[in-house]
């Protein structure tokens, strides 16, 4: 507790010891500096610790095949994402889009953009179906994930079975196209001090928002084909 002033640390030492003694009754392990909080039980950790990493850490035991996944997807996912992951209205498109990342309008899907399959499993498992999070069984999540791989042409066999055992063998096509943050990628002040006077000869307006007026309060519904998320 280095942010405690020295004086406060000494004065509070006996109180801290008393607090630590109380905490010890609940926590078998040695208490922390302030003795606050209590030990988490194994069941509590298991209930909340559901995250999955690219190396497969955190995957539950289970398995599911493409055809089962298609059935579960049609029942629980297609309402928003469409039968083939094409996306209804502005809900996310999940399949296709390969080769479009340099296009004027890239289509970023699991197959075209996402680097790791573990992200798919983790997200479905924690947050889907939208409005009914964490209601799917592990086998259902494996099955849906297998179906998403099939729809994205990552596997081409509709008998493919995805499980905790073969999960880490699957690679998504775009994994190698992610880079570390290279900023600064524009000049710093010491390299290029900002110009203050006579910085250019003339100025012209090159674009106006009214040309493509999508500002709310306009009389019409508008879709500019952009998304913030």
């Amino acid at each position, binding site marked *: 507790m280095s942010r405690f002033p020295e004086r406060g640390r000494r004065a509070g030492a006996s109180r801290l010891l008393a607090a630590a003694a109380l905490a010890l009754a609940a926590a078998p392990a040695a208490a*922390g500096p302030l003795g606050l909080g209590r030990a988490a039980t194994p069941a509590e950790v298991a209930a909340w610790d559901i995250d999955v990493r690219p190396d497969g850490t955190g995957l539950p035991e289970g398995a599911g095949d493409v055809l089962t996944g298609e059935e579960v997807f049609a029942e629980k996912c297609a309402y928003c994402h469409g039968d083939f992951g094409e996306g209804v209205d502005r809900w996310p498109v999940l399949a296709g889009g390969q080769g479009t990342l*340099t296009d004027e309008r890239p289509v970023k899907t699991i197959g075209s953009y996402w680097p790791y399959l573990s992200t798919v499993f983790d997200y479905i498992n924690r947050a889907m179906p939208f409005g009914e*999070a964490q209601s799917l069984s592990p086998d259902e999540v494996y099955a849906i994930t297998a179906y998403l791989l099939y729809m994205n042409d990552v596997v081409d066999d509709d008998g493919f079975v995805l499980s905790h055992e073969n999960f880490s063998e699957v690679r998504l096509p775009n994994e190698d196209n*992610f880079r570390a943050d290279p900023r600064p990628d524009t000049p710093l002040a010491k390299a290029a001090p900002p110009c203050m006077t006579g910085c*250019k000869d003339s100025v012209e307006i090159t674009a106006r928002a009214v040309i493509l*007026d999508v500002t709310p309060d306009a009389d019409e519904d508008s879709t500019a084909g952009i998304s*913030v998320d």
Partner: protein
Amino acid sequence: MSEKTSASRRAFLRTGLAGGLAAGGAALAAGAARADDPLITDLEAQPWTQYLGDGVDAAPYGLPSEHEAHVVRRNVAWLTADPVSSVNFTPLHELEGIITPNGLCFERHHGGVAQIAPSEWRLMINGLVERQLVFTLGDIMRFPRVTRAHFLECAANSGMEWRGAQLNGVQYTHGMIHNVMYTGVPLRHLLEEAGLKGSAQWLLPEGGDAAGMTRSLPLEKALDDCLIATHMNGERLRPEQGYPARLVVPGWEGNMWVKWIRRIEVGDRPWHHREETSKYTDLMADGTARRFTWEMDVKSVVTNPSPQAPITHGHGPTVLSGIAWSGRGAIREVHVTTDGGINWHQARIEGPSLDKSMHRFVYEFDWDGAPLLVQSRAVDSAGFVQPTKNALRKVRGVNSIYHNNGIQTWAISSEGEAENVEIS
């Protein structure tokens, strides 16, 4: 389209101009003989002077004046699929100083607003720690606490403007930001309480909402300046801002400031979850993507005048006001131009200059009534200079969505109306 557009722009400006014109008419007569103002001479026109007002308990939790009812967050319906997983925008053009009022802080939820009673809230720390712990809110309030002002900017703020000027209103072009005085516990204290193991390098903060929001956070940042905040601007967090506790990650993109936080896992490598792979990665023109682009770079914008806040008083003394911020430190300088960047002027930083906090700048000038091209350009304490939008596009293309900190231009007409434009 153009007919509808100008109609909607007129509607947009009507309320603002009506008030201003009345004032302008009165000013015109200042020198000459003029009629007496009934708001001064006629008692019946000033009922507040004659009759009693409400008593002290009319509003136990006070609300803004009824005349400020237009000062609200607004959303852009077409941006997202559903309001439960959507965003609205802070009305920057209606605010002054550096603090955003709690009820006007923009919202971004991925699974709606979780409603959690303080007594039902728990925070778990698990993973690579000596002691896996569970804290109640009462426990959190017994840790040493600090109070600091920080901006929170969504990485996608101004994201709609990558392809060109789109939205006529600073609320929409720049309103995914707020600046709040947080009170909370340094995350370092909680991690020390659990005891970090030697292999610990990354954290996974997790929200308790129906989106189960997760982001990978490097341990170094967590130990440096992150907070578990319980209060904003002196009162408890608002539900839509993560009540009863949220993560504060100063200077870094807003998505990482996990609301309704329920768990922090300690690990040895990042998790690569949805919000740091599928989303919040920056797609470049060559098809590669940048990941873990955490810092929000130096940025500024003129909030008045702007399309929602035209100049209504005519030529003469004019106050230009705006905001600047940087995720890499404090703001050192803000430059303002009214001629589209031919000549720049030093703006005055008005009010507190705090680390990773919003700054207010003002520039007073005598407007001759000629059309203006107004811009602002900020320089931060790390030496970063706010770039032009075209400089960013040259490096990053137009599909990166996130981290658009380019210089904003407002074209001001001789009538004082403002429009979002881009210039050469």
